């Protein structure tokens, strides 16, 4: 029988509704040593009661949100990480847009992998530079490249692949698609985006291991009934049976029309991942700010490339994009599955990391807990 004493506090959250088994259940949540645990063996084997009881006053407890695309001053990752917890994001991929090789070489190794009381860093999302210049959006054209020599080119460009978790590329910029399988084998998620690819280009990339689409609808060919383009991957029959193609979608009502969002949802809801593509401008005032290589201008809640009409990432915090249990899963479980980390993140299952948020019935974030520690409370 294990001892009940020691410094591993057992915390019991009661009077709450948990997001479990794809629905809300009235159950208590038990946390110890930064993990969500099964209370049954604690009761019968360890014969322990909770050290701390926390009354959630009827709140919904959901897994913390996981954002796969957050831009910002890479020097300020710690600050961004602390700010994110207010929106309920407990893990994220700091995103680096198309940049010169030097930038990758200097900045990538300096990105902190651990944050202090902030959202956890899952790895960097390098969005570019292997994108199609015709779909560059707010990315600087002079830094765009193509992958001519597989992994060699990648290492030349990025320096090291060590801290990279997601690469967004345009498959038509890749000479030999086999490099995609090599990246996947190295544990990197390959995402398709900023591309003019046809559906068959996209299907070939998926067959080689690509599993994510970066901000669906934006920076790609629009859906066409004779060539659906990358959007067509949502209903393609050429996807290997055991795989799911995930797609990030910015649901702020600005980047994507709600009807387009509904079409994507109805076609392939299990692949839907909510992203904010938020920039460090999260909560910024109107005016000129800087992101990556380009100055941006915030006008009436929208961010544009300064002096143009090109939209530049959403500044809507994650909690405004969500609306129901599915929405919660689209922002937590689905990204976790996409990154293959659902054993530790994205759920309230026993054994997973104690990263979770308290929500009220309007899905507003009341509190954020990371690793069993409260890092934000309203």
């Amino acid at each position, binding site marked *: 029988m294990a001892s009940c004493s020691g410094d591993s506090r057992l915390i019991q959250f009661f009077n709450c509704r948990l997001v479990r088994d794809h629905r809300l259940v009235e159950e208590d949540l038990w946390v110890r040593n930064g993990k969500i645990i099964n*209370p*049954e063996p604690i009761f*019968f084997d*360890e014969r*322990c*009661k909770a050290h701390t009881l926390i009354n959630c006053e009827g709140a919904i407890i959901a897994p913390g949100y996981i954002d796969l695309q957050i831009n910002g001053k890479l020097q300020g990752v710690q600050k961004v990480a602390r700010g994110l917890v207010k929106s309920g994001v407990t893990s994220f991929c700091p995103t680096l847009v198309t940049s010169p090789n030097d930038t990758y070489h200097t900045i990538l190794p300096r990105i902190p992998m651990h944050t202090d009381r902030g959202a956890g860093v899952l790895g960097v999302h390098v969005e570019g530079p292997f994108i199609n210049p015709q779909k560059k959006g707010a990315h600087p054209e002079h830094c765009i490249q193509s992958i001519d020599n597989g992994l060699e080119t990648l290492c030349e460009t990025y320096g090291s692949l060590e801290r990279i978790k997601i690469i967004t590329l345009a498959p038509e910029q890749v000479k030999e698609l086999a490099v995609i399988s090599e990246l996947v084998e190295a544990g990197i998620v390959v995402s398709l985006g900023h591309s003019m690819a046809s559906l068959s280009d996209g299907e070939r990339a998926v067959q080689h291991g690509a599993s994510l689409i970066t901000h669906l609808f934006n920076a790609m060919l629009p859906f066409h009934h004779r060539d659906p383009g990358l959007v067509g991957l949502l209903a393609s029959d050429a996807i290997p049976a055991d795989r799911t193609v995930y797609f990030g979608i910015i649901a702020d009502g600005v980047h994507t029309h709600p009807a387009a969002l509904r079409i994507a949802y109805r076609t392939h809801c299990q692949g839907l991942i909510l992203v904010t593509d938020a920039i460090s401008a999260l909560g910024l005032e109107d005016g000129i700010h800087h992101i990556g290589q380009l100055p941006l201008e915030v006008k009436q809640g929208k961010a544009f490339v300064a002096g143009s009409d090109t939209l530049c990432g959403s500044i809507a915090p994650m909690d405004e994009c969500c609306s129901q249990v599915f929405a919660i899963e689209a922002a937590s479980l689905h990204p976790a599955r996409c990154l293959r980390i659902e054993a530790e993140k994205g759920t309230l299952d026993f054994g997973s990391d104690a990263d979770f948020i308290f929500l009220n019935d309007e899905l507003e974030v009341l509190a954020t807990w990371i690793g069993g520690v409260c890092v934000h409370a309203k």
Partner: protein
Amino acid sequence: MYPIHLAEVFDYFLSMLNNFIRFLGNDTGGNMRLIILDTSQSVGKWAAKYVVKRINDFQPGPNKYFVLGLPTGSTPLGMYRELIEFHKQGKVSFQFVKTFNMDEYVGLPRDHAESYHYFMWHNFFKHIDIEPKNVHILDGNAADLVAECNQFEQQIKEAGGVELFIGGIGPDGHIAFNEPGSSLVSRTRVKTLAQDTLEANARFFDNDMSKVPKQALTVGVGTVMDSNEVMILITGAHKAFALYKAIEEGVNHMWTVSAFQQHANTLMICDEDATLELRVKTVKYFKSLMDVHSKLIEQQKTT
């Protein structure tokens, strides 16, 4: 079978009369009380109120634990729900309560949906403030089952004996897993389950007989008889015949619940449906005592 000799005829009628006389007399000490309520929900609620009153009147403390014997099953489920409600309303605490469950299957993983550990944890213990070390449920996966049973008896003794043992009744009149033919002085032991029980349980195990546990650990009839008070919950028409056999016929090891006719303090709570096989006279008699019996739970006001 009807007796055919005159002497036997007299004996037969005399025993019937004796059984009936046992129901007469006052309701304090040395009497079996039958509480007849309208529905099975009322049974659960009444039983919960009684438990709460008994615990509170006992005034348990760190040196004086209230020892409770507990059953599993659909009838007690209603009682547990009500007890949890009372606990949440602050009307009862289980901090100084010790519990001993009646039985558990042999060989079933503890977290299996049909195990009695699972039942008790999800339906009762996880919602209340009982100390985990005060909970005793027989371990059907113990290396030495006989030692486990003996240890259970020892633990009851060390706790000072059971103050109130709550149980249900099977359609064949069994209490816990003391199936027909069990000794009325039996103690906690390993029992091989009757075919009827296996068939009744099959529906909880995907109707696959190979998955149904064949043995169980159970308290004996004698174990329950040792307690200060016994409360049996009986609901539903399918239990009616068993109730009749338990209280209107003699003490018989084929209907083990009948043993409690010889316990000084037996309380039986049943619903209308469960009385369907009793004599109208018996039912009317006990219903007329409801005023008196209501006082048993008087201090608990309904909310």
